[in-house]
């Protein structure tokens, strides 16, 4: 499954409050719309590190990197280089 879809699936299953919810587009603002909150980001970081074998620390830990599905998958791609 492509990175973007894996991330989407994780967010839909684990972070969207009512689970089944409607589609989540690549550009929906996840933090501003409340999909990712302060606890949700901890789960997301764990998921990204485990599934894409990357380490996220220090300067990478800025909200902008996790703003949308699109920015998250770009970030993962760049970390995986």
């Amino acid at each position: 499954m492509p990175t973007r879809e894996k991330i989407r699936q994780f967010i839909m299953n684990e972070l969207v409050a009512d689970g089944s919810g409607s589609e989540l587009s690549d550009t929906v603002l996840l933090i501003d719309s409340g999909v990712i909150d302060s606890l949700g980001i901890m789960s997301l970081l764990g998921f990204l590190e485990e599934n894409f074998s990357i380490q996220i620390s220090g300067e990478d830990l800025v909200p902008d990197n996790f703003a949308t599905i699109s920015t998250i998958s770009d970030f993962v791609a760049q970390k995986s280089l």
Partner: protein
Amino acid sequence: MDFELTDEQKVWKETIIKFSRQELAYDIAAVEKSGEFPWDAWRKCAEMQILAMPFAEEYGGCGVDFLTTVHSLNSLGYACKDAGLVHALTTQILCGLQIALFGNEALKLRYLPSLCRGEKVFAQAITEPGSGSDALSMRTKAEKQGEAFILNGSKTFITNGPMADVVIVFAVTAPEKKTLGGISCLVVEDGMEGFSKGKPLEKMGLTTLQNGELFFDNCEVSCDRLLGKEGQGAIIFNESMEWERSLLPAVHLGTMERILEISVKYAKERSAFGKAIGNYQAVANKISRMKMNIELGKGILYRCASLKGRNKRAPLDASICKLFISESLKQACLDAVQIHGGYGFMCEYEIERDLRDSIASTIYSGTSELQHNIIARFMGL
């Protein structure tokens, strides 16, 4: 994971136990009554390099790995009966970890050496009169004006606050954003205009520790005092909690080990109805529960410390660790008082102090209820 102690860990543990028994065996009740902070003991701990342990040598640290630091603080919690002093020291180390993990080179060079030497006292300020568990709903604001932030608001219950030289302050920098991007961390120094400190608050336990309010009234903080990036505050908070929820329980587990030893000794020596009270199951069961919780606590503590030492993420483990060990400590102290009967209630045996001190462990660094919430969230609830 293999948690057999290394030679280095054994040396640190033995040295700290010996040091504590020789140098930190002062009359705590007298210090409590005086209302003073035990500065002499603080300086001795700094000389022992306890504050410097996990920091890189280029910043004045010892370059010791995190698991070894955890083992050492465990020994300090075991051998030093002044839990207030130990909490003050641990808070200083936690502030240092925040600076080491997120500070730029200039901040690290400026602050870590004096932190390691204990010359400056550090505090971290998150809680406010109106927000504790819901920490990120804080009201303290830092408005950017040119090359500075103008800080306004107040913080409360801050450990080391009344005597702090340097405070890591969490404040809202972008109110329009959700908390994740709207909070930042600023390093404020005593003496800066608009920054003032309240008197130590009176508490039921941890009496030698100083906790208090901090006030910011148009306090101008230059942008180069930003810890991490603007908007990174909530993430720094989360990350710091993982370290904190591994380090504080190390101390608590040490205290529990001391409580167990005292309880076993008393249960063997005290007799009632012609037998040592330890022969009665109702007493022995309390002691076996202490032992069980210590061994279970070690498992989760070492796992957390080892994960953090390898820079791995451990939010769930850290919450379990904090919750389990702090609740176990509180229970162990209650049981120890009960095992000691009337003597347990009297100050002379010093167990009542451990009980009073232990209550705070289920409140600071996120209450037990909050740890349950975090664990439940990770279970998808």
